[in-house]
């Protein structure tokens, strides 16, 4: 099955709708260990990314690049540089093509993980969005099916509940961050789910 620029624009639309729907839940998760605005940043960022993607004519890489810039300029915050870098790397992985086999979205997931590592310099286990992206990327690189990749991301996000944050804003809480899932990892697992829906044959 081919994945076209139209499908990519639809995927950004799905990201945007999902983040809007989950905004208050993500803010509440962030309120427990942070500053309660994660849902807002993700909603605004993905809306801007979807708008920028929709307005772009060009290759898959062009659409990813436009979305990256849209996300970054809309939110700043910590999610801005992290997802902008992730989407730029995803664009590079997809390349200057009008479409690609949908199975290659696995390489997109791995590239997003690489971009987040490059920009945020976090490691797995530090209670960040990487704890959802890394297991998803590992499953994707192993060629697992879409459901398995999405499950890896969800389990990764859930596992942050038992982690003590050592980077990012929650790091100042130390042990008090235990028992709460990382909101960045939870939103990441939602984005992975949306990508996995696009991997599956219709």
């Amino acid at each position: 099955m081919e994945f076209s620029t139209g499908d990519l624009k639809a995927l950004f639309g799905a990201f945007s709708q999902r983040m809007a729907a989950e905004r208050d839940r993500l803010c509440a998760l962030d309120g427990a260990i942070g500053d309660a605005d994660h849902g807002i940043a993700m909603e605004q960022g993905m809306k801007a990314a979807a708008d920028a993607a929709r307005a772009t004519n060009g290759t898959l890489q062009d659409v990813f690049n436009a979305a990256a810039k849209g996300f970054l300029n809309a939110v700043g915050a910590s999610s801005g540089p992290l997802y902008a870098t992730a989407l730029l790397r995803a664009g590079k992985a997809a390349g200057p093509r009008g479409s690609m086999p949908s199975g290659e979205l696995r390489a997109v997931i791995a590239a997003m993980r690489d971009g987040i590592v490059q920009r945020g310099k976090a490691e797995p286990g530090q209670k960040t969005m990487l704890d959802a992206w890394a297991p998803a990327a590992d499953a994707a690189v192993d060629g697992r099916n879409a459901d398995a990749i999405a499950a890896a991301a969800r389990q990764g996000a859930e596992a942050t509940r038992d982690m003590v944050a050592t980077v990012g804003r929650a790091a100042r809480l130390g042990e008090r961050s235990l028992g709460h899932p990382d909101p960045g990892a939870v939103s990441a697992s939602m984005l992975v789910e949306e990508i996995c829906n696009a991997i599956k044959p219709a």
Partner: protein
Amino acid sequence: MSLTQKLINDGNAAVDEMLVGIMAAHPEHLWRPDNAPRAVVARHGPRTGKVALVIGGGSGHEPTFLGYVGRGLADAAAIGNVFASPPPQPAVDAAMAASGGAGVLFMYGNYAGDVMNFDMAAELLEMEGIEARTVLTTDDIASAPRDQRQKRRGVAGNVFIFKAAGAASDMMMPLDEVERVARHANDRTFTMGVALSSCSLPQTRRPSFDLPIGEMEVGMGIHGEPGVRRGPLRSANDVADEIMDAILAEMKAPAGDRVAVLINSLGATPLMELYILNARIAERLKAAGLVVHKTLVGPYCTSLDMAGASITIMHLDDELQRMIDHPCDCAMFRS
């Protein structure tokens, strides 16, 4: 849960509508470059040969950051969404507008998002041939142990630290010296706060965290990040004592030394309570043999509508005293 009451039109437009109101109120102090709505520049600060001091961060802390843009203090500020770092572009816009050819010093509180966005801005400026350096503020002693000072967050001490760097820049010191003064000011500034109620974001109008009646959070951050300890609400004197014990133990100032004091409201706490705190703090400083050179009392670095206060002590020396006494003229702060 009922929504908090706010005088807003649209939560998502709150920052931009506030900026329109600020520009309308302070045209003699502030302007914005064309196509850079989130960069605010001092009318009379930037000049040729002067280091450009560019500050910034999320909104919701007013008068921090843009209220400290003006001659003798910061040359420009980059404005983010509520409690969110600005993206790189406004920081680049602010730096370009303020640049006097002697380099740019970025100063902002130590938060992961701000560091990533301002570092990207510094990289973009380098491509334009403008040298940009960074000094992070890390004055919140509750946010990490003393031996991990570089992990601490920047809070209300920003006011004194920016003030010192702005004075150095206004005295036409070169970039190396302005940076040195900024780091020195940060090293000698100590803050701790206590929250009595949650703030709520204009976009959600719900409390950002749950703080029951009768309790307080000691060491709470200026975005409502949980602090070091939660416990029953205590008297002003007890709270002042707990905070002063922590600050004095860190500061280790010998008797006879001078300090500057900032009693800061987090938004909802009135001046009456701030001055009650200051009565005890003045007493404690006197008992420690310290000389209060300057005291600021009021909302200087807020957290939207949060109730609570923070106490900042800057341990002065001759140089920092000169910087704190240097005149400045900003939209929301004059001295």
